[in-house]
């Protein structure tokens, strides 16, 4: 990774700040959301520049892609009247002066901290690399997600599950008028859906030793599901099969963790020899669950087939 600042970095920095501001301050919320999606894609470029390709994959697929689809879907559902907003929504008024002052103060404090930091600091790289051979995978990010800090990832899938439950509980809205999907979309789905399945599976497998993993793979599968829903609306319902698949990733993760406890290693402490197998099992279940849950967040409970 080249660590000198290049012209590209300066351009990216300016573009990121400008797009973020446009995404927040555009009077038309549709424009704002589109600018937010472009911002997310440029953010993925920034992650690459900072040597974080795993994060870039997650950002492009989940942060920009799925979040963007969710935001656009909500805009469509609240309709034209709901989207209208003031001409200058973030204009500085007297009521907002306090907020603005506090925010400027916070920013100044953060800049002071940044300038005070030494250019090189000890991190956890050395430990992460030293234990890598015992972790069962050779990608240090996957090792952190599924082994060193597996608790985080377990609870993260739990958060996703809670969000799905919340959406299921809340989702009692009118259906959208489902216009006939245009022919190119059907064609696109035929080309992209098999590709999403293959690349999703590839990302899961390759995550053990290169950028990729369950979240990136799951997000790609989910993107395929969202596309399919747009072309041929389907209802997922909340039958036992869907519920089982939604809970599956969390349940397998938890059960493997408990099995490790019973085998004497401690909760989620994998024996070095078998760690790779356990991680692959957890990641496979997690990927399928994540994909389904992300599609549920988009499709909701009762919509579709309209």
């Amino acid at each position: 990774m080249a660590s000198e600042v290049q012209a590209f970095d300066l351009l990216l920095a300016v573009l990121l700040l400008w797009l973020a501001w446009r995404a927040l301050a555009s009077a038309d919320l549709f424009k704002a959301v589109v600018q937010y999606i472009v911002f997310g894609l440029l953010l993925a470029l920034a992650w690459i520049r900072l040597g974080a390709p795993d994060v870039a994959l997650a950002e492009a697929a989940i942060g920009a892609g799925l979040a963007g689809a969710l935001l656009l879907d909500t805009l469509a559902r609240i309709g034209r009247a709901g989207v209208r907003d003031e001409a200058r929504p973030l204009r500085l008024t007297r009521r907002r002066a306090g907020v603005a002052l506090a925010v400027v103060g916070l920013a100044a404090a953060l800049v002071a901290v940044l300038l005070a930091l030494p250019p090189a600091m000890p991190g956890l790289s050395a430990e992460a690399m030293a234990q890598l051979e015992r972790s069962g995978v050779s990608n240090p990010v996957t090792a952190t997600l599924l082994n060193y800090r597996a608790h985080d990832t377990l609870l993260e899938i739990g958060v996703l599950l809670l969000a799905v439950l919340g959406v299921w509980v809340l989702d009692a809205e009118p259906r959208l008028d489902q216009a006939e999907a245009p022919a190119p979309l059907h064609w696109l789905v035929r080309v992209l859906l098999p590709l999403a399945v293959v690349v999703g599976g590839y990302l899961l497998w390759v995550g053990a030793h290169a950028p990729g993993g369950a979240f990136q793979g799951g997000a790609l599968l989910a993107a395929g599901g969202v596309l399919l829903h747009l072309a041929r609306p389907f209802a997922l319902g909340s039958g036992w099969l869907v519920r089982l698949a939604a809970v599956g990733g969390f349940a397998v993760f938890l059960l493997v963790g408990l099995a490790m406890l019973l085998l004497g290693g401690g909760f989620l402490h994998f024996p070095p020899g078998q760690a790779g197998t356990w991680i692959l099992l957890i990641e496979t279940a997690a990927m399928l669950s994540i994909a389904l849950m992300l599609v549920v967040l988009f499709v909701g409970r009762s919509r579709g087939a309209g």
Partner: protein
Amino acid sequence: MSLALLYGLVGVGLVAMGLYAALAARHLLRRLLGFNVLGAGVFMLFIAHATRAVDAAGRPDPVPHALVITGIVVAVSATALALALLRRLHARHGRPTLPEDREG
């Protein structure tokens, strides 16, 4: 100027903008965009900081990377739930704003 400092400053800018929009905007979708930009700024500070802790091979610290991937998924989960709440509020009251923001 190092990469860590440049992108760190971008992170601060995003935090400031996002926080201001999340607190000052009336339309709840705009507040939600602000919340997401604020999150992006925090992730940016974290990943920029990871480049200060390179190992012998010049690779940045992988632990913040893993934490940010977790953060991205949590942020999207929270966004999806917030959007469902927003749609529910809009369906019930016909306005995508909080009650105290409706006047003036």
